[in-house]
């Protein structure tokens, strides 16, 4: 072999390598160009038009409002469906698809006069028949309705009076009813499409909302486009007509770092559920804005299971309340970005009892005294013992670490150790079996978004013998009576008083430890204007504009 040959081979290798390098750098620069171009498009867009890209933290289960069980679906469903009525910021009920309504004296018949100019996206006219179809669909077992079923109670039937008048019948009066039908999960679907698509309706949703459905790519994105015919928005938004923008693409980005990264790198214009550690950083970013709305209903609350000794004794429960430093937990974990909760209800809801704020301060001496009184004596390892039994507490929490709830468990474990309680934390995905079926918990936390204080009933009213027990397993005749009264009381002030009583009584009985109020947090580009929030804290996109 000659030198020339040797050089030749040598050359070929380096040619290949440098060729590859050039190819790679071409790909890199080419791709960089793509991203920059899309940025430019975003900032050039005028006040009208453009597409809002909005990152969701989890995937909706279905876009069939009556069958959905997830709050995340509501973000999308609120763009597709309208409701009969709307609840405004002060909690009052205003017209939407229904122009007006009357309630019978016994509170069991609601007669709605409907708008005559409303059409579903598929052209089906909206009328009394459509309302009847929708409400009957929710209670039809074949629909397998989820949360919608709970919301529509005590609905029994509807009667079409004339084309634009419908009478809705309830089995018992309910002051929560109008608020409940304002929710997206009782949004009105197109009867034609719902009948035609059957089980698949959730993947081909048709409503009468400001946006209409385009497509859904599994786990990736859901797109909606503007409904140009829309003229029937409720008074909670400024723009009564069709949206200013062309559409919305909801990207599904479960990984926190990727979701926040996508807003920072301008790949999406807005992203929901910003983790506390990012909130502070984003607040200081000049290109981004932070939008926050506290959700309404039941705050994240730890329920003490009264069905298990020793927690059936009020003193034992009070000891827990005194030993747990909720302030420390909320400050440490949420860095001042979440408000702590004091009551069984969140602020802002009818009847919220402000007087409970700043009560139940941590008091270790008090906690120790109560446990001493009950005869639990500290053993050698610092854990209390009575009749040979160690004082243990089963703390169940769901997986994954949603809103740092697993960390709350860890902190409580430490705090309760100080008063001699051995906390056994069980973090499991299978809440339905462990908590709801087997009741294997002493402490379990939950929250619920709701517009009406009547939501307390599902958690604190004595469960019927055949039904599943409530989370605290509470049975208090006084609370039961108030909750029943509250459901039917027509006088708003009276009603508020009743729920204040309930909250105070729950506090006296020490069945819960309220922890935090969840703020729905959105990070958005400065170029996005007009994202607003409804009464429950869900985003509304009617007024959105994208522009300079």
């Amino acid at each position: 072999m000659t030198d020339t040959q040797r050089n030749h081979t040598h050359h070929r290798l380096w040619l290949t390598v440098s060729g590859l390098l050039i190819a790679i750098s071409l790909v890199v620069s080419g791709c960089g160009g793509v991203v920059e171009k899309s940025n430019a498009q975003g900032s050039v867009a005028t006040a009208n038009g453009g597409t809002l890209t909005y990152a969701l933290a989890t995937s909706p289960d279905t876009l069939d409002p009556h069958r959905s069980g997830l709050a995340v679906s509501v973000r999308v469903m609120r763009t597709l469906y309208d409701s009969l009525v709307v609840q405004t910021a002060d909690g009052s009920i205003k017209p939407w698809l229904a122009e007006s309504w009357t309630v019978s004296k016994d509170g069991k018949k609601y007669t709605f006069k409907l708008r005559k100019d409303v059409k579903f996206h598929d052209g089906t006219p909206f009328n009394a028949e459509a309302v009847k179809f929708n409400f009957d669909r929710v209670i039809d077992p074949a629909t397998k309705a989820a949360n919608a079923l709970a919301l529509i109670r005590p609905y029994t039937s509807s009667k079409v009076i004339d084309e634009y008048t419908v009478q809705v019948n309830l089995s018992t009066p309910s002051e929560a009813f109008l608020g409940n039908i304002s929710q997206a999960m009782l949004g009105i679907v197109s009867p034609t499409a719902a009948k035609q698509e059957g089980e698949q309706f959730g993947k081909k949703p048709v409503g009468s909302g400001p946006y209409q459905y385009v497509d859904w790519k599994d786990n990736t994105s859901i797109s909606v486009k503007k409904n140009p015919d829309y003229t029937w928005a409720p008074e909670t938004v400024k723009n009564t007509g069709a949206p200013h923008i062309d559409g919305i693409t909801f990207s599904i980005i479960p990984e926190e770092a990727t979701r926040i990264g996508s807003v920072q790198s301008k790949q999406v214009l807005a992203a929901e559920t910003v983790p506390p550690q990012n909130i502070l950083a984003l607040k200081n970013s000049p290109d981004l804005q932070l939008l926050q709305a506290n959700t309404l209903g039941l705050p994240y609350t730890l329920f003490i299971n009264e069905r298990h000794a020793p927690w059936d004794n009020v003193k034992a429960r009070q000891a827990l309340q005194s030993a747990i430093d909720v302030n420390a937990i909320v400050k440490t974990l949420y860095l001042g970005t979440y408000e702590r909760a004091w009551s069984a209800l969140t602020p802002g809801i009818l009847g919220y009892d402000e007087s409970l704020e700043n009560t139940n301060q941590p008091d270790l001496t008090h906690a120790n005294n109560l446990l001493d009184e009950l005869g639990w004596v500290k053993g050698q390892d610092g854990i209390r013992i009575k009749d040979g039994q160690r004082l243990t507490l089963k703390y169940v929490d769901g997986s994954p670490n949603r809103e740092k709830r697993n960390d709350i468990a860890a902190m409580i474990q430490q705090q309760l150790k100080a008063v001699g309680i051995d906390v056994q934390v069980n973090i499991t995905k299978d809440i339905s079996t462990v908590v709801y079926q087997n009741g294997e918990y002493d402490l379990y936390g939950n929250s619920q978004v709701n517009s009406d204080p009547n939501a307390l009933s599902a958690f604190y009213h004595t469960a019927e013998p055949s039904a599943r027990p409530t989370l605290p397993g509470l049975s208090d005749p006084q609370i039961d009576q108030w909750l029943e009264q509250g459901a039917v009381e027509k006088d708003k002030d009276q009603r508020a008083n009743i729920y204040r009583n309930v909250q105070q009584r729950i506090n006296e009985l020490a069945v819960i430890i309220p922890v935090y109020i969840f703020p729905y947090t959105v990070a958005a580009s400065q170029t996005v204007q007009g994202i607003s929030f409804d009464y429950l804290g869900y985003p509304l996109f009617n007024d959105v504009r994208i522009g300079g």
Partner: protein
Amino acid sequence: MVQTIITRTISSLLVILGSLTLVFAIFYLLPGDPVLSMIDPTYATPEMIENLRIQLGLDQPFYIQFGHYLADMLRGDFGVSMVNSDPVLPKIIANFPSTLILTLASTCIAVLIGVILGILSAVHRNGWIDILARTIGLFGISMPTFWSGILLILIFSIQLGWFPAMGSDGISTLVLPAITLGIVGAGFVIRMVRNSMLEVLSEPFITTLRAKGISRHVILYKHALRNALIPVVTVVGMQIGEMLAGTVVIETVFSRQGIGRILADAIMARDIPVVQGVVFFTAILYVVINLLVDISYTYIDPRIRRSLT
């Protein structure tokens, strides 16, 4: 030769059947009630729960459920999702191309980086380039992909703005996830190529070639490399399977469409038919790839072919 293919095929079928049984049994034996995870337990009445159980056939004994399940699978009926009633098979088929592209791109990156660095590493044994290549290999193998993925997003998406952090439209969205996954594979390939190169270089025929006065480069890149690449084919084949599995994490981190993402979500939601469908589908793929690799290197390496006949 034909006999080999037949026995391999039969054993492959057994592997598929085994994985099916395993997935089915795991879900059957897992504590917890799939029906309860489908409807909100706060509101459902016991009657509703029971009806749903009967409707899903979950009230039947194990062997009947398993029998129905096998029969359905054989007919190509993968059932419908428990979460939203979507048929499972079309869901898999619609999402598969995206996973396939990611897998192939990652494999290409793994082979490209792996072979180049592996050769350089062996040729410059114990030099700085060898140390560098081995460090990169070790890094690739030991770093969890969700971590390196997020690291790449932080650097190349947020800081530099070169590539998108998420999505599955276009080549630009493919780069970061493919590199994340490719680096892992590259780690294995680097090691394999390096070891195999060093082994070949110490064989007598290389000495003979040297004695004949053939240049070092020709020996290295023509004779040694060709022989050294044979075991690499196996590693690459196995890597394709690994990459396929790796997409479960990567597709979630980068919010890509794909069957890995579907699987991750279905597991979280206890959506049993979807989990079973995806596992069955990937088991078939895995087995087919391995079969092809086995068959292919009987062609590549005459020694194996001879030993088999």
